[in-house]
């Protein structure tokens, strides 16, 4: 059975990875042997300088999901490269580093720092985080999307994965822009802008006032977005949005995704990525599919 997938020149042993911000490697708790089996690992988004993050409460549970406003809390690029990177490299799984910035200049300096660090397989551009105090997001503007990706491509030889926001009128337009600018792959989707109100206090239940919805609640919308984009662009898609089990993951693959990322599910069931990989294998066996590539975008119409 062939589970290998490719993104640009990069090869991954299987299509299962984790979504940025939902996986953290903790020696005390994690079993390295199982993490090694993943196709890739995507780290939490980093910024050039440290960010404190949003006030609490940062999360609230909703029907079949959760709303979060973490605020990209991180200790900055230098700390990441010195402290986190060596540990993540040791996992022996292709490592995708997710980056974000308020300004192009900042982003380029960040990418240049990563160029010098060893052991990074690809960079994911988080163009879509809804929690920073922007007027619009880069990923909500096809021109800005083009400009930023183009600039980053110029600054690095590492493959670039553009992570898009679902909070747009037509995600296909943005995806096309990203492809034209030279993105090697797309990550679809980030969280959906959302809020939850405490009716007794008549206040938001989120410290940042608004946040982003993730989990099974968003899955059908995410599947449609992946399908629409897969019909239009040629670059591979890494899909995410409410994947809890192998069936969910298979929906995305059949809709056109080359890889699937497990996000919120990690919080509920830390074994989800492992179980999803096993489930994809047994589905392929049952349906006599020898190569995962035969499954990608295999949706039938009519």
């Amino acid at each position, binding site marked *: 059975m062939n589970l290998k997938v490719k993104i640009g020149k990069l090869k991954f042993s299987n299509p299962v990875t984790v979504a940025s*911000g*939902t*996986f*953290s490697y*903790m020696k005390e*708790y*994690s*079993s390295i042997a*199982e*993490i090694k089996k993943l196709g890739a690992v995507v780290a*939490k988004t980093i910024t050039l300088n440290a960010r*404190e*993050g*949003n*006030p*609490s*409460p*940062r*999360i*609230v*549970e*909703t*029907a*079949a*999901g*959760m709303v*979060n406003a*973490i605020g990209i*809390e991180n200790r900055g690029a230098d700390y990441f490269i010195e402290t986190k990177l060596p540990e993540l490299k040791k996992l022996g799984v292709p490592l995708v580093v997710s980056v974000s910035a308020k300004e192009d200049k900042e982003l380029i300096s960040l990418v240049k720092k990563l160029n010098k660090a060893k052991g990074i397989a690809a960079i994911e551009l988080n163009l879509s985080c809804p929690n920073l105090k922007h007027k619009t997001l880069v990923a909500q503007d096809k021109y800005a999307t083009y400009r930023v990706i183009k600039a980053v491509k110029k600054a690095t030889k590492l493959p670039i994965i553009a992570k898009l926001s679902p909070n747009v009128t037509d995600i296909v337009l943005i995806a096309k822009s990203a492809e034209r600018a030279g993105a090697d792959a797309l990550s679809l989707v980030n969280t959906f802008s959302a809020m939850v109100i405490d009716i007794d206090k008549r*206040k*938001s*239940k*989120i*410290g*940042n*006032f608004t946040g982003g919805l993730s*989990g*099974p609640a968003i899955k059908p919308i995410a599947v449609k977005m992946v399908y629409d984009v897969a019909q239009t662009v040629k670059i591979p898609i890494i899909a995410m949005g409410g994947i809890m089990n192998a069936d969910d993951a298979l929906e995305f693959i059949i809709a056109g995704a080359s890889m699937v990322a497990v996000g*919120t599910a*990690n*919080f*509920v*069931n*830390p*074994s989800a*990525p*492992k179980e999803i990989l096993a489930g994809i294998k047994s589905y392929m066996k049952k349906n006599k599919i020898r190569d995962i590539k035969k499954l990608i975008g295999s949706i039938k119409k009519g």
Partner: protein
Amino acid sequence: MIKSQNTYKIISNKQVSEKFFHICIDAKSILKKIKPGQFVHVKIDDTLTPFLRRPFSIHRADSCLEILYEILGEGTKKLAKKKKGDSLDIIGPLGNNFSAPPEGTKNITIVTGGVGVAPFLALTDILKNKKYNITLLYGGRNSDYVFSLKSFLKNKCKVFISTDDGSVGVHGRVDKFFKNISFEDAFIYTCGPEPMIKEVQKFAVKNKIKGEASLEEVMACGIGACLGCATKTKDGFKLVCYDGPVFDLEKLDFNANGKCKCK
């Protein structure tokens, strides 16, 4: 992908007051690892309601894993319906633990309210064998929140109870008892509603008494991955699930605790 995730059988699950239940779980493999103050992260069932796990302090880790819980919403209501022999998916033990009182400590005061009392049985299981005077101050909203504190008496604690409506014990809040207690060479442990911890901090700082508080924050992962349970301290944001739940009482920063300042 988690070493400390496991499924265990329930040994018993009983109501101990109008609002509180007590569950015993056959988690032999982790009992010896557990330190007082740690918590477990419980998947109530395989449905999507509740969606996330629920964190509970470890009440006692002796012959089984004990949890004392308050019926609050969907998750705890479902937990209360579980029967002997049912299984529970648990991650844990998680978080840090209460530290031993500093050398020279004579008087230990535990200030708690409601289900915040939970972690202190495990703590007094250890402290009872050392030569401390232990006082437990327990505040409840009303009689629905008062359950038998016999096990604390057995652990050589002097117990004082108050309720907001005076239905059990003294009428009013637990800080009423402060004036009757010796705080010489003292150490304070506290866990409960935030306003109570805030009062305790004020009192401790004013009287130069050291102590520790166990905090609560809404959690998703429980293992330091999502950064969702951050709480503001005088040293910046700390994760309640990973850096805590136990914090130096002095270090808590209630003014800046970021409880929604937005309109």
